[in-house]
């Protein structure tokens, strides 16, 4: 009888030991949500000043490039953004001010600020292949709020070691059924995101290029979003970016929009 108990204990110890050994291997890799949290951490910024060019290329090969400077700041009441076009010449000076709810526009040729009521925030970002949601997720808002991540595995993508995540939207009204994201293990930036729609069709593909360290942070100097449905793509090139700036709330006012900085 005692012998039997000894056996029992030994077996238990063995099983527990084996289980912990096996699970050590599993827990050595971070979970999907840990990876995604790291991504958000790497990309989020309290405040940011950036100038970038946006090139739209249609399926039939027509192109249009615009350059704009953007100031953005995270606020408890919602994020704020001010943008001003630098080129081409005929739209230079056109400004946009956006907060959580509203959008104001300044047209220099008209010489005044008008409020714009539109459902633009549901749609594409300034006519590009990125939606406002895409833009926010890649910027200040991050992905964790909108998605639940699970780790699918590890892959080598374009010579970089990556974690492959599957992101399922938390909210019903998402544009996508799910996302696949390849996260660089070194710098925690997404190298590639595939946006999936109904019937597992790839709607859009985002790729990031030319990763550089600026002010101690890793930044993708180029992002390319391809719309697989329309065949068009948008290329975003960062010209200058700075995170070490203090942005006053007063900057995000219609006054600044009209008069300039």
């Amino acid at each position, binding site marked *: 009888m005692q012998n039997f108990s000894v056996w029992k204990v030994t077996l238990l110890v063995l099983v527990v030991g084996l289980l912990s050994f096996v699970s050590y291997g599993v827990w050595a890799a971070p979970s999907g949500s840990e990876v995604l949290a790291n991504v958000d951490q790497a990309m989020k910024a309290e405040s940011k000043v950036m100038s970038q060019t946006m090139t*739209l290329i*249609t*399926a*039939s090969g*027509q*192109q*249009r490039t615009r350059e704009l400077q953007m100031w953005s700041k995270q606020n408890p009441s919602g994020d704020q953004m001010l943008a001003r*076009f630098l080129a*081409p010449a*005929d*739209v230079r000076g*056109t400004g*946009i001010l956006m907060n959580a709810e509203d959008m*104001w*526009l300044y*047209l*220099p*040729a*008209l010489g005044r600020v*008008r*409020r*714009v*009521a*539109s*459902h*633009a925030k*549901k*749609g*594409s970002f*300034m*006519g590009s292949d990125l939606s406002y949601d895409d833009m926010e997720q890649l910027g200040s808002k991050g992905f964790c709020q909108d998605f639940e991540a699970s780790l699918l595995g590890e892959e080598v993508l374009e010579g970089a070691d990556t974690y492959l995540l599957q992101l399922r939207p938390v909210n019903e009204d998402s544009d996508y059924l799910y996302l696949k994201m390849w996260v660089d293990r070194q710098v925690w930036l997404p190298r590639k995101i595939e946006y999936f729609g109904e019937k597992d069709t790839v709607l859009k593909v985002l790729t990031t290029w030319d990763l550089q360290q600026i002010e101690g942070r890793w930044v993708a100097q180029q992002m390319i979003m391809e719309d697989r449905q329309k065949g068009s793509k948008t290329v975003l090139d960062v010209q200058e970016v700075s995170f070490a700036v203090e942005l006053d709330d007063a900057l995000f006012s219609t006054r600044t929009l009209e008069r300039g900085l």
Partner: protein
Amino acid sequence: MDGFNKLVQKAPRFTLAIILGLTLIFAYFVPRVGMTTDVKDFFPPAHPEVLTYNEIEAKFGGAEYIMVAITAPEIFTAESLTRIQEVTRRLEEIQGVGQVRSLTSIDNVQGSEWGIELTPLIGDIPVDAKALAELKWQVLDDPMYSGSMVANTSDAALMVVEVKPTSDPVHVAEMVQAAIGEFSFSEDLYVTGTPVLNQVLANSMKADLAKLFPVVLILIALVLLLNFRTWQGVFLPFVTVLISVIWTLGLMGILEKQLSPLNAVMPVILVSLGSAYGIYILSRFNEERATGKDSKKAITITMASVGSAVLMAGTTTIAGFASNVTSSISLMKDFGIFTAFGVMVALVVSLALIPAVLVIQAQRQGNLTIKKEGRKGQNKEAGRLLSKALSKLGKVVVQRSALVLVLCALVVVGAISGLPKLQTDSNFFNFFDDGSQPKIAYDLVREKFAGSQSVEVVIRGDLQDPAVLKAMGAFQDDLEKTGLVGKPTSIVNLLERVNSALNEGDPAFAVLPDSRELVAQYLLLLEMNDEQGMVSRMLTLDYQEGRIQALVKDSSSAATAKLFATIERLTDKHFDTVSVEITPTGIIVLMNSLADMIIEGQIYSLIFSMLSVFVIVRLLLKSWEGSILSIFLIVLTTLINFGLMGWLGISLDIVTVLISSIGIGVGIDYSIHVYSRYGEERNNGHSVGDALQRTVTFTGKAIATNTGSVVAGFLILVFSSFPPLRYFGSLVTITMLAASIGSLTMLPALISLRATVQERLAKKKIVEV
């Protein structure tokens, strides 16, 4: 010819095996033959109009639209608007549908004291009467929507479904039709537009042929049965034409060609014409057997004599169809080639299969005595009546040749005077009867809205230049004033609206901005809010190309031609001072150039077939007089056909255009028969008058039978549900009758008159001497 006949008669089983083998091979490919009604398929792929059209589609998104109209006693009720929303959403789900514009989906640009709104025209559907009345007033008062999205009378609304350029419009139309059928209120929904028409056309055409083709077969079988009253008399010509249809469709399958509204009648043509060869051979065979010859000898004699006549008739028919290769319309070319091939097959198979079977039969049965003597007697009785009539006709023609000619001339002049009234039409909408579903929808959309087909005017130049935009605006205004189109829209309308909206919605500012910067900045504003492609459907990304769209009220060829003349005039008027390039395009442009190509193709193919038939006839008849007379008669027949079409208001379209080539290829046979028989009689020592009299009496009988069988086949088309097929059937019938009657009256009368005049001249000479 001799070698071929000998081979067939020596190795009949081998001949049959070859025919059977080839038939099986061709039959394998028959199921591959599809059906197309895409207007673009009528054009050669590199046709400039098609290239322009495709370019526009690629640049601006689709240019083919499916229109779904909804009727209700009042559109501005919560119920009606909800229906529109439901249908719009359902249609948007369909794969291949780009965008659906309707009251519930379009964006509105509106100004207010605080700024600008770029929001859906109808956000949440209002439920209370006051809000609905306000909405109604706002929408009906807005020229952008009134008459285009909703009828002025507010009892109908339109949903414009854009077909993605990469999708097959006919397939999308099918899915739209299916989706519409799901709604409980589907009887209030009307679907139209070119893709829908094409889809309905393709389906109904198939159904029509499936219905008519067996009837044609039965009728031909009946004619054969009446004529021969033996199983082989029905079976042999029948099998011949079936083989020719299988080979032809098989060849089309191998070459991956498609049937179209145009060559869908081809099987009917092949059956009607192809059976004739077998008839000639079998009747001669029976005739020889009736004189007491044994089967083998009868076959040899038949093939030696009638074989060459059949060959001659077949060759001219082939030439008539082949003449369509000169057409620049791709499908027309295909029709010509394949029908010519089919006739050739019928000809060759008639000359090989029929004697081969007869030989085998003779070998098996030995020399049987002629069956069914009594029946023959009956036949002779009926034949005697015909002979009597023909003999009388012959007498009249010879003795009263001048009178006959005057009568003929009267008929010809009367018919031909309708020529100036002849019109061309390539509008597929006219392929439907007035009471048919597609026509009802088409007429409803025309009545309540501008129309269901669009004209697209493409402007190449600097589209941010206010001068260019102003010219476009003035052009659009003038175009609208002509009443030929609904309200034309372009980027100009959007810019005007934005200008007004940014100026507190002041209507005084609903004009184009003066400065280039303002234009650029307005465009920027619009592009930032361009979820629905309001801008990208009107303007390319680089601002170097834009389009003006207008719905066309009347898409008949005549109205389209007028519209294009107007566009050209207005282009000269408004765009003279700015450096732009203007190109009108759209499905109706394709339709319009199709009409031009029909006429042009028709003229070339007529000349070509006349020349080739003339050469063939000259070679075979070896007589200048005969060939010139034959051609003269066929020219008149062709003119009578066109003249009658003018009188009857039947347009020359993609189906009726085929009549003249059939008329020439087949109609010439009668003249050939008449003239060759006349030559034979003269050689036998008969006088001109006697020879003509005998010709009309004896050859007349063959011609009457032949005409009867050909007409029987084509007359069935009168029961088609498509007006063009009905016209086609009756016109071919008239042409065949004209050609056969002409060959028995006018032709001998001319020969007789000529002989009389010569005689008199000769007498005069003698007197003078």
